[in-house]
């Protein structure tokens, strides 16, 4: 018998807006993605110097997760090995790859090179929220809700995780979109199904 799990919180970031559980949480009219992400970060009023050093994809994932977990800091469980992450996107780390490649002609930048892997965004989020559970990153043409739902359900059903952040985080040049949700074994929210996930896109 498969257990039923809940989506306890959802954040989406696109078109210069951040929506948290259906409510507009932040909006700004900055003309470019980098400045929008910076404003969103500043709006959080947290001190995190590392943010400025991240690539665009990590900044997007980081900001989205910060809003997602803002109200319920309890996500960082005592046993944080049981909180994990399953994310997907379309463009992998292509944005960072291109920026790194531009420096190769003169002196290659180590600080840019370290972001040329898509799973680094999960590393940054894990560092911030001390999430040490299993994490996986998939590259998909578009968000494959059935696949992600099945994968996350497997992790929760088999007690590999007790809670999971899952969703989509994609950024290439000026195009970006993040939709992240918290899925938990216990808690208030809609049922965790692929159909319900798709309603947030």
């Amino acid at each position, binding site marked *: 018998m498969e257990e039923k799990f809940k989506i306890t919180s959802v954040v989406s970031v696109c078109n210069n807006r951040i929506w948290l559980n259906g409510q507009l949480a932040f909006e700004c009219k900055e003309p470019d993605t980098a400045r929008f992400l910076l404003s969103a970060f500043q709006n959080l009023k947290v001190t995190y110097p590392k943010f400025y050093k991240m690539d665009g994809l990590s900044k997007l994932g980081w900001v989205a997760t910060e809003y997602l977990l803002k109200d319920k800091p309890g996500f960082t469980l005592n046993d944080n090995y049981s909180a994990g992450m399953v994310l997907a996107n379309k463009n992998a780390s292509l944005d960072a*790859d291109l920026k*790194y*490649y531009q420096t190769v002609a003169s002196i*290659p930048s180590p600080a840019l090179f370290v972001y040329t892997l898509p*799973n680094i965004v999960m590393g*940054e989020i894990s560092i911030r929220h001390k999430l*040490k559970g*299993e994490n996986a990153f998939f590259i998909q043409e578009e968000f494959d809700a059935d696949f992600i739902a099945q994968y996350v359900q497997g992790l929760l059903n088999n007690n590999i995780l007790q809670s999971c952040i899952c969703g989509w985080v994609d950024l290439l040049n000026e195009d970006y979109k993040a939709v992240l949700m918290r899925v938990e074994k216990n808690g208030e929210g809609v049922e965790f199904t692929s159909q319900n996930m798709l309603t947030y896109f």
Partner: protein
Amino acid sequence: MPVFVAGLGAISGIGNNVAECLHSLQESRHGIAPMVYLQSEHRNRLPVAEVKLSNSELAQLTGLPVHISRTALLSLVAAKEAFLDAGLPSGFPCRKAFVSANSVGGMDKTENFFPAFAANHEAGHLREVIHHECGAISEIVAKELGVTDFVSTISTACSSSANAIFYGARLIKNDLADVVIAGGCDSLTKFTLNGFNTLMILDENPCQPFDENRRGLNLGEGAGYIVLVSEKIAGMLHRMPKAVLSGYANANDAYHQTASSPDGTGSFLAMTGALKMAGLHPEEIDYINLHGTGTQNNDIAEGTAIQRIFSNPYPLMSSTKSFTGHTLGACGGLEAVFSVLSLQHGIVFPNLRLETPMKELPFTPVTRFKSGISLQHVMSNSFGFGGNCSSLIFSKS
């Protein structure tokens, strides 16, 4: 539900198939040498462990066209070997999956394309970039293998192919596949070499993992796959399965994008998680195939985590990266193959060039080839950038 290992396939700097790799491991013959195939301004300074075949030789071996990415050529050689080694009865109806990892994709071809294209956007052959993304490599190989039921690509840096293997096991456990060819591949590219060079963790001499005076890693290339089968399929094969994949776990170190935490939190969690799943006590592990890259940071973090879990007498340990270099997306697959060979033949491979044991650690890896030992359980560690850490445990079936 047990998941069995029925086939092995490998290509690396020390051999073009499993038998050749095994022979080199037995003879303590490493594959780290000056570059022959990779074109780089660092060719005289940085040794690498290249597969000793040109692209046209690999194309001939695989039947693929020569313009295909070297990553796919390497992948097909090893995946096909593994598949044939499993000896599945032909025409037998079963659901086959291919789960393959890589970190560079078709970057080798993109690098050929880019200079001309950058100068003139009308120039360059598009066929050189159509296989750029990691998944394209798996699709090419899956097609050649005739696998159509399920194909997936995992890219989590240096733990990629260990993750591909346990992902494959999950497909079987959840009854989504009967046979899974799982592992990974990577070819050497300028992108990777220059990138690791900026991190200043490349050794200008053959690397010395777990040595007090280690200076860094050597990059390598290759592919390694194992064929995982369900219990039902295992029972129908003519040969006994080679091993059982008895435990696996993945965890995040949550410390730094590239550096491991000083106490090796991620590696500790991965190893203890795999032990728990296999239902084993630490003292039951007979051999650990270390991640052992040869960097200051990895070896002390991994060593510290091992020290926290295991106690005297420590299991035998060695890093076979002292033979193959660090093959990135391929290393979890290659080292899974080596771990199963170790279990099957009762042998342990030496950690080459270990001169001075690390002063912080109470144990020393094996420095000479050992044979005739009884091994029941072997652990293989793979840790990657982004804090992604995985451990696999193979047991006698």
